[in-house]
């Protein structure tokens, strides 16, 4: 494999920037661009020691900084790695990278460092994905889960289930292959109860994905309500005043389509916020048809009602739209303006909060209610949370296979139960990257940014 290099810190001005070089020639390339302050000390090339010196290219010295060498396999990628720390200017960083490329390194592809770490057996696939999660994380919670998993916590949890299943498969086969030996018999009821326990574990893990997705990718959310119920104030309360806007995907004009805001540990992806902002002024623009569209595509509907005005035909039309779309369970009913009126309309939603968007009263309840709707209540601090859709799909497949093994024991025979357990094993192995095809590997690492 070739030696690769990339800038490891964000582009732009900063105190310090990092150029990382990995591969067979990493040290010799570093030697060509780094002039150590003490040549004799640097000549020892000790693992993990920081050497001070200056950086140069063919036109001469252009910066000073530090160089750290990591010997294979004791590095992140498992290869020889040189890390060069220069000053964080755009020009100087580019110059240093150019020098590395000129001296034989090739430009790293996105995620190539992590990919090499994976194929050199330094990290499992779940760890690699967790590293991607650390880079991408926008909420504290996501960051803390990702860093925990980068250390292998999910891999271990999956590994335990994997071992359980392997043991079960072994018992099934021992039972079949040694019909004469009473010492290997596992009774069918025992097998069944152990399988059910594994299935429950898997379902529980898969169940955390709703929450995991809510903290990592965000929940597609629609704020709906008739004019002047306070949607705009709510929006401002959620993003404006708390200054929690994370991305402006479509730009800064009035065409804004989506804003991602933080709500406690979760992320909300608000659609059509431009429409909401305008609607306070131009009442007629937000018709019920438009609301219906928003309701259909959203996974969370924040339906705002005005406590001071009671329920009218417009409200009823909205309620019907929600019920018809089968979204009542995904709806949080928000009774606003409790600062003006205490009148409490009775509405057909099981999730309801009372707030005053203006004063901020009840916003905490709203945060809690949304978190509960997305599974926070079912998750303990120590639980593994599946944030990654690929892992979740594999875990769901494994759970399905275990379920079908249980069914096979009920109506069919042990031999097919054994097949189902093997299927579950391979699904789990895939979740954790124990077996992976080239396609999956490429797919995963293509999402990384350069330098990781």
């Amino acid at each position, binding site marked *: 494999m070739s030696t690769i290099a990339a800038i490891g810190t964000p582009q732009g001005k900063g105190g310090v920037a990092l150029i990382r070089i990995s591969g067979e020639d990493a040290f010799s390339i570093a030697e060509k661009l780094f002039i150590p302050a003490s040549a004799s000390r640097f000549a020892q090339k000790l693992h993990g020691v920081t050497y001070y010196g200056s950086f140069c290219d063919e036109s001469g010295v252009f910066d000073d900084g530090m160089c750290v060498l990591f010997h294979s396999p004791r590095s992140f990628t498992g290869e020889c790695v040189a890390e060069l720390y220069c000053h964080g200017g755009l020009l100087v960083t580019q110059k240093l990278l150019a020098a590395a490329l000129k001296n034989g390194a090739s430009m790293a592809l996105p995620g190539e460092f992590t990919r090499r770490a994976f194929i050199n057996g330094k990290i499992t696939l779940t760890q690699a994905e967790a590293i991607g999660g650390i880079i991408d994380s926008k909420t504290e919670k996501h960051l803390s889960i990702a860093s925990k998993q980068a250390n292998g916590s999910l891999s271990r949890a999956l590994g335990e289930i994997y071992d359980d299943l392997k043991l079960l498969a072994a018992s099934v086969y021992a039972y079949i292959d040694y019909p004469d030996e009473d010492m290997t018999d596992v009774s069918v009821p025992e097998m069944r109860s152990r399988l059910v326990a594994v299935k429950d574990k898997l379902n529980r893990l898969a169940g955390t994905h709703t929450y995991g997705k809510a903290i990592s990718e965000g929940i597609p959310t629609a704020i709906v309500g008739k004019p002047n119920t306070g949607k705009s104030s709510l929006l401002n309360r959620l993003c404006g005043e708390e200054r929690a806007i994370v991305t402006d995907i479509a730009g800064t004009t009035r065409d804004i389509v989506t804003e991602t805001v933080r709500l406690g540990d979760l992320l909300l992806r608000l659609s059509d916020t431009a429409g909401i902002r305008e609607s306070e002024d131009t009442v007629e623009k937000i018709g019920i048809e438009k609301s219906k569209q928003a309701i259909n595509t959203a996974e969370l509907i924040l339906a705002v009602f005005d406590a001071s005005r009671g329920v009218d035909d417009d409200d009823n039309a909205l309620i019907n739209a929600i019920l018809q779309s089968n979204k009542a369970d995904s709806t949080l009913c928000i009774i606003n303006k409790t600062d003006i009126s205490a009148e409490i309309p009775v509405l057909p939603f099981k999730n309801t909060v009372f707030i005053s968007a203006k004063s901020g009263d009840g916003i905490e309840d709203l945060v809690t209610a949304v978190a509960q709707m997305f599974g926070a209540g079912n998750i303990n601090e120590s639980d593994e949370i599946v944030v990654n859709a690929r892992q979740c799909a594999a875990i769901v497949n494994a759970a399905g296979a275990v379920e079908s093994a249980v069914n096979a024991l*009920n109506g069919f025979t042990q*031999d097919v139960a054994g097949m189902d357990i093997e299927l579950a094993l391979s699904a789990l192995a895939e979740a954790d990257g124990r077996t992976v095809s080239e396609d999956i590997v490429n797919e995963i690492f293509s999402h990384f940014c350069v330098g990781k």
Partner: protein
Amino acid sequence: MQKYVSEELDIAVIGAGHAGLEAAFAAARMGAKTALFTLTLDLVGNMPCNPSIGGTGKGHLVFEIDALGGEMGKAANHVMLQSRMLNASKGPAVRSLRMQSDRVRYRDYMKQAVEATPNLMLKQCEVTEIVTEDNTVKGVVTSFGAFYPAKCVIIATGTSLGGRIIVGEEAYESGPDNTLPANRLVKSLQDIGVKLVRFKTGTPPRIHADSIDYSKLERQDGDDPAVMFGFYPSKPNLMPCYVAYTNQKTHQIIRDNLSRSPLYSGVIHGTGPRYCPSIEDKVVRFADKERHQIFVEPMGLDTKEVYLQGLSSSLPEEVQLQLVHSIEGLENAVFMRTAYAIEYDCCDPLQLTNSLEFRHINGLYGAGQFNGSSGYEEAAAQGLIAGINAALKVQGKDPFVLLRSESYIGTLIDDLVTKGTNEPYRMMTSRSEYRLLLRQDNAQTRLLPKGYELGLISEERYNEFLKTESALEEIIYNLEHESIKASKALDDLYEERGFARTGAGIVKAEFLRRPNIFISDIIALSGDEREYDDILLSRAETEIKYSGYIKRQLAEVERFAKLEEKQLPPDIDYTQIKGLRLEAGQKLQKLRPENIGRASRISGVSPSDISVLLIYLSQRK
């Protein structure tokens, strides 16, 4: 030492055990001039261990051998004492036939069959040397100085090669049942570059039937009607087996004398089979078991000898006596043969190709225990394949290789030559990833046409087979197209089996796919009075009932075939591929698998190594 040149052969087979016999039959029947060499003519097809053929996974092998025109199944049927279908309730994939066999009559049957086979000579002598030239086999030399020129040589030496029997502190050079050991051949094999390893196996005591108190044992009868290998017409069971149990006292005797067991005192160096452990192994490894089962099996109609399956041991004879006498019903057992362990030389099967030919010696084949396997059936299966391939080689044709996805035989051989083995390899149903496709009941469908093509199945048997197949198709077609009418009886049955009453009729096949519904229910409900063959009915039941799983396995087969298609170029330097773990790189470098599929089955090559290989291949393009 060569003194004269004897007859010129196409194929020389060394050893007339279960591997050598099938090899010789196949080769001779395919037209090759074949000689079968054995140390003693009186032990052709000997069963030095258990007097039975078949068992889990092994029964599958015998059905497959039979479908390819082998002799083992026919011989076992001929001398059957009792037949039992193991795992009958555990599913169609794992049903395995086991037959108690008359050991003496089995030998007679086999010897007569050899004598009656054209192109096949049976010779009593010791082969002491394999002659090669430019890494090509030229023939064999016997202890009497005869040189037999041969195009191919098949080694099937079993436990005779460098054999050594151990009983407690006593040890001596010997083949099984105190026959001559083949010692001189060891050196010849080493001289031509065959890598040998040392394995160990063992056998339990044989006792006199009249010294057993059968009233204290559990009687175990055969199935009625008895199923035969190859589904030949059923025969009556002739003798029962019995079950005895060890107890705490037995275990204490063993523990007290462990230091006298050569296994634990270090006298035995060979690696024994994990799957067929000695009683001392079982007591040590499963210390919390209160008792172990012992099967008391008759050895034949004309003998009082009785075999104690489960009591394999290498303890001193006096300790063996004590421990057998501690077992209820065997208190007064009189020993006829003492249990012994036997060490022997065999080859590292990684040296072989899937046709069982040595990679580095043209025309030299290995079969049976010599290839590191254990068991009569495993031996016979390899013998058959080695014999077929040697005959094809003589004819100048391509090798005959069975795939894992089409047979247990293919799985057995692929495991041996791809993964190698560090203990005697025993076939088990769990070794096959395509279990549901590889059943005993469809062995003929899978393999008989191949046997016919090879010339090992007669025209008559082939036509009979075609008739059976079309009868099966008709049954399945009818089940898929006929319905059971709505009736109270149908609804009652639904209710009885845990379903809701429907008040409606149902297509028979659809009904059969439900759990806990069987073909007998369908026949009863529809008042079907057609004459059916029970075996075909049960096959049809399996094909329909398990069709979902069968489809899934077929998809697996296809996926597997794709991996087999991804070729690994022969010039790859695996030590230079970055990312391969050291062990994987070394293994691949040594074994040089032809494709990714085979690479993935090599022990020490992990799935992530396979990912690295796939990525490497895509970058190489």
